[in-house]
């Protein structure tokens, strides 16, 4: 299991770093709740807005 963990951890770290370096960044980290009209942690709209 240790080998699996080493492979998974190193791969995950490479993917995180690579994805970050090749993707746009919003500057400040955000949550979907930060956006106007969000009514839940995932950013779902409020029932009354439909």
């Amino acid at each position: 299991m240790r080998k699996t963990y080493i492979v998974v951890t190193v791969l995950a770290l490479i993917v995180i770093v690579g994805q970050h370096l090749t993707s746009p960044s919003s500057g400040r980290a955000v949550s979907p709740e930060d956006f106007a009209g969000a009514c839940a942690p995932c950013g779902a709209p409020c029932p009354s807005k439909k």
Partner: protein
Amino acid sequence: MTTAILSAPSARAGASIDVLFLGLAILATAAITALVLLDGQMASAALVIGGFGLGIAFWKAEFSYTASFRRFLNSGEAGGLIGGLIVIAVAALAVVPVAALYPNYGGAIAPLGPSLIIGAFVFGIGMQLGNGCGSGTLYTVGGGSGRMLVTLAFFIAGSVFGSLSLPPFLAMGGIDPVLASDYLGPWGGLVATLVSIAIGIAIFITIARKRGANWKPSRSYIVGGLAIGLLCVFVFAAGGHPWSVTFGYTVWGAKIATALGFDLSNAAFWQWPGPKQALTNSVLSDTSSLTDFGVIFGAMAAAAATKPFASASWPPVKSLLAGAVGGLLMGWGARLGFGCNIGAFVGGIASGSVHGWVWFLACLPGCWIGIRLRPLFGMSKD
């Protein structure tokens, strides 16, 4: 493979340090922290550090919402759930008033309706089969459980399916979030929230006594609950919202699906502004991902600092299958139910939002079913 495990003479008998994994955990945390600091994002670095602390606290206290639900339903033992309410009470002291008074902060809110109830119910089933909830999966993966690696992989997949299911379930109807501070103001809302927690504790104690079970939280749950509650406040201060776990899983899954050639950008969920930006931007721009990474590596550091890491053998196939099924159900349920024990139960109640209690009441019967399904996969009901 040669393992790098050093005995620590000054430590208690039998304790040892797994230098390889301790180093890996610290290196990974340092790398992620450095990346966000290079972008000048102090708050993002604080979220990673806060997550790291949460990983250590959860691991050291062996704090488990899943086991707490199970013990309460099986025997009436309420100490674990009361420990969970200690976390919520500590977090509420900051979240309710600050979210109501300062526009840059907000609570964890969610609409009340079929989506919330069905999602929490399904999550409860999955939680007992997966043997860990959102936070439990994170810290046990970090702590070296191969079984929970399987649970996490399917949790991530399930949450992507959940993101596709949520809009039609929301269309079934519901009402806007009900927040105590909207009706009673910041301090009245806080009082109402603390009173609701006190009533919850009183009900748990009454049920435990009637069933002849212990209701007192263990020392580790009291100390751990206080520490986790304070770290929840730290994460809230850094991120502007209560700690949440499962949106990060959904983002990871959607990014993996996109990399594999699936186009999610036209799905209704991924056209909402928050998810749309999360799908496009760096994973380190998402608050829940930052704390998730911190929790995993914090738990890894804590585990590796005390014993040989991931030294157990793989569990039986049936157990791995339960982890896969549980992970899928939890992922799907978390998206429909607006989070897990952390995002919905802890975050919701600590924000004074009624949906937190509705989530808990809907999750309980799901757990009851999940407990009865565990023997099918060779798992104990206890």
